[in-house]
């Protein structure tokens, strides 16, 4: 690992000053599960590493306020998995967070880091898209709130600008009843990077959303406005046509070692149906239908 200096700001203001002063030569350290590897492999060679875990404003890491949960940059995957409210209202997020790496990784890796890192395979991106999360970003000119769909840009890229810090993810419990589920495809049952990630939500108005990732430069969110996917009476042909349309943005790389494009496309359809099925079951439970 190349040499760098270590900064540990205790306030957001201080952190923004450090970032402002160092521009692209600063890297933010939260969980470090990606950054430390990148520095060891010399992909990242920052002059300054800014550890944001001691910033007063970021504690507590997870706060419920009415129907909104706010997760600070220090909220780890393990904390997400353990939170009762998230399991109740955003079960697909808990399902995605619990398969990120091993226990050791989840104890360090943060939810915001998973998004800010910009990996197309980020497990939590599809559920956060499907739950319409908002990313709160702070910079020297104040804060801005960005819908996650706009925040995620491409491999390793987000809407985060130089000198800014993503300071929170906000998730609001939807006003309607929503069932949701997360599915992924891996090479083994143990920890693995997914070759397909997918989250489905079905609401009580018959609107189905499918967000999917790891099959192109970024994760995508699609909505079935036709109501076909949520309709138990719809034919499988009709559903297949809707899925085809939804997965049109999938562009899996032929260079991937994890799975072939054909397999990934096929698994999108399989996982899509499975996730929609499980989401529908959950919706029915919420509706009190047995």
């Amino acid at each position, binding site marked *: *690992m*190349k*040499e760098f200096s270590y900064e540990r700001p205790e306030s957001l203001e201080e952190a923004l000053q450090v970032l402002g002063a160092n521009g692209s030569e600063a890297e933010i350290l939260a969980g470090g599960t990606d950054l430390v590897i990148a520095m060891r492999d*010399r992909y990242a060679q920052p002059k300054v590493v800014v550890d944001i875990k001691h910033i007063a404003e970021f504690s507590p890491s997870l706060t419920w306020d009415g129907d909104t949960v706010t997760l600070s940059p220090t909220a780890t995957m393990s904390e997400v998995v353990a939170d009762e409210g998230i399991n109740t209202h955003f079960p697909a997020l808990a399902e995605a967070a619990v398969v990120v790496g091993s226990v050791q990784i989840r104890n360090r890796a943060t939810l915001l880091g998973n998004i800010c890192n910009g990996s197309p395979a980020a497990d939590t991106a599809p559920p956060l898209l499907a739950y319409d999360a908002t990313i709160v970003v702070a910079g020297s000119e104040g804060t801005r709130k960005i819908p996650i769909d706009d925040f995620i840009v491409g491999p390793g890229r987000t809407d985060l600008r130089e000198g800014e810090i993503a300071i929170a993810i906000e998730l609001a419990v939807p006003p309607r009843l929503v069932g949701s589920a997360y599915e992924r*495809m891996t*090479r*083994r*049952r*143990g*920890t*693995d*990077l997914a070759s397909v990630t997918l989250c489905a939500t079905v609401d009580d108005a018959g609107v189905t959303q499918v967000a999917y990732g790891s099959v192109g430069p970024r994760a995508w969110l699609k909505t079935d406005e036709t109501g076909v996917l949520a309709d138990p009476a719809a034919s499988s042909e009709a559903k297949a046509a809707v899925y085809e349309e939804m997965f049109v943005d999938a562009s899996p790389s032929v260079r991937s*070692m*994890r*799975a*072939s494009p*054909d*397999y990934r496309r*096929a*698994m999108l359809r*399989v996982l899509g149906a499975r996730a929609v099925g499980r989401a529908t079951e959950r919706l029915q439970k919420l509706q009190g239908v047995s």
Partner: protein
Amino acid sequence: MSSDGIIGSSPNRVGGRDRVTGAQEYVADIHSVGELHAKLVKIDESRARIVSIDTTKAEQVPGVRLILTPDDLPKPMPRFGPQYQDRPVLAVGTVNYHGEPVAAVAADTKEAAEEAADLVHVEYEVLPEVHTIDAALDPDAPLVQDPSLRPGEPLAHTNIKTEINFGWGDVAAVEGDADYVIEREYEFPMITHFAIEPHGFIAEPVDDGLNVWSTIQHPFQLQKTLANLLDIPLSKMRVFAPDPGGGFGGKQHPKLEPLVCYMALKTGKPVRLIMSLEETFQAVRRPSTRVRVKMGLTNDGDMVFQDIATDYLIGAYVDIADRVAEKSSYLAAGPYRVPVVKIAGRTILSNTTPTTAFRGFGVPQITWARESTLDEAALDLGVDRFEIRRRNLPEKGFEFVPGDTPADGDWRQTADKAAELISWGTPLPEGRGRGIAFGIKSGPTTGLSYSTVRLLADGSAIIFCGTSDMGQGARTVFAQIVAQEMGIPIENVNVIMGDTATVPYDQQTSASRSTVLMGTSVYRACKDIHGKVRAMAARVHETDEAEIEVDGGVVRMAGEELAITDVVTAGLGALGGEVIGNGEMRKDKVPGHPLAGNAAFFEFNCTAIEAEVDDETGEIEIVKHVTVGDVGTALNPQQVQGQDDGAAIMGLGHSLMEGLILDEQGRTRNLGAIDYRIPTSKDLPTELISASIENHDGPGPYGVKGVSEGSLLCTAPAVGAAVRDATGLVIRDLPLTPQRVWEAMREQKT
């Protein structure tokens, strides 16, 4: 023979305490005063001509003490290898595989070494390379090894290193006798060992010699290699081999130790090279293979002939690859009575990581092909897939390879046990299937193991032997033998290994040999002590030696039993001292034998699998995994189970998920733990049963045979057969990833 007491029990592992406290010292944990840290310089190509190496910038990094390039080494470049002297200390002229070191840096700190290695500028010209069997065999293929490296070899102008031919009878003459003939081709991928301890080496100049620490399995072979290369007498070439953190064959033979020694000699300082996991991947692998199996059977399923040809894709240097090919091909026809057998094999050089020994020594590759073909034949013939195997098993004592060691066990017991444990023949739910396969591997064909046992005045004992305990538990079983034969508690036995200046010579730790060969040596050292104790007892008790019997820890004379330790304490008298016993186990070469010697024993295994296949995703769930081995005697049942469990799961690894992935230029893409997948605790079968058959009929002490490799010999064909049973899919390449199974399902539907 006494098998009560300590033999057949499972005392705490000798060395186990240090393994649970963190006190166990592995090579990377050892430091020398004034040591330098080494880092390899590599280029990202599998074959390239080195034009120049510019070290100017690297030399300016503070703390850099040496940048060793080929110019700093003797000319011609020193070469070494266990079979051929073909591996250079550093790449000379060309890089011949991805990751071959072209230079090396030594510096005061790891960071400085890394920084400098990064700054060494290597100018090179990419050359055409070969990394597949077909490409290497193309008449226009570039030669991996210059013919000058292969003097006198008839195939020196090709990429074929060696051609192998074994067999008995004439296939053409009996082909007509078969009711049914099947011919199939199966492939097996490149696998890497992935010992959790990456390889590491330290060399320290001392006086007129060298001390070397290595993760090596064969310290005496390393000692000899280094002594020859560096012209140092064996007595001054001291190799320390701390217990390796897993070996599996990957740590058998010298790799980068010569380089580190030259660096130490050049700087006059200790130099340590602790490799990364990625670098370790670039140092060792299992050969990939393509096996063509032709088999003739009667309608009842009796074997008429087998004709098996195997291509082994080996690396740029041979390492032990020819031996792997010979030994695995030799038993290619399996544990069966086959009247006529024809075996051919070729080792094929390529610009890939040199292939070496790996648990099973080539047998898993061939077994995958033979057993899977046999399964296909059984289905065609309508013969039960278990019965077709069982009926062809030889009786104990039958020379199933003419002129060689006869079948050394009642193998039907093993087979029947496996069938029983998997409930063979009972109905299964939809989507599930079962498979069963048999595997066999020769134990060692030659060997030489010395040992010394010192029985001390207080009745405790020290064993000195050159086996490497890399997890198989050799220390424990040797201590059990001495505890049994001296009649002392195992807690009072100490086992010294891993230092060529302290322990007597041992040829190697491989081929599941140590309990049988070194175990016999240790047993004989105990017998040597027994003889001395008998003389001592005769003197002390003024009795005729012929009236005294010493065995199993006791001295019997005049109708009474005395503890050996009591006799020794009395016999040694006031000055104290000790009784020293020496043991030797020699298994000499047999002139004219194709493998230079017959098998000391066979590892015979039956593996049975019940699996469920997800018909949408192709995922395989192993519901039940049964492995049964004929072990002779389970000297330590807990350790036998550990070996069997471990080998079985390793077998599932190459069956379901493992494989090195090379790009179009022959560069390994999945270096390291992120994209080379081995099984985790979450990938275990729902149920795994490791069972043993014990008839106390092995050649080692107390009737022991070798274990350690049996349980992965036939995992893949058993899994493949279960998948076929569940789905009807015939898949002839590994690993059986979800994608591969899904692709086969898709093809099946069209």
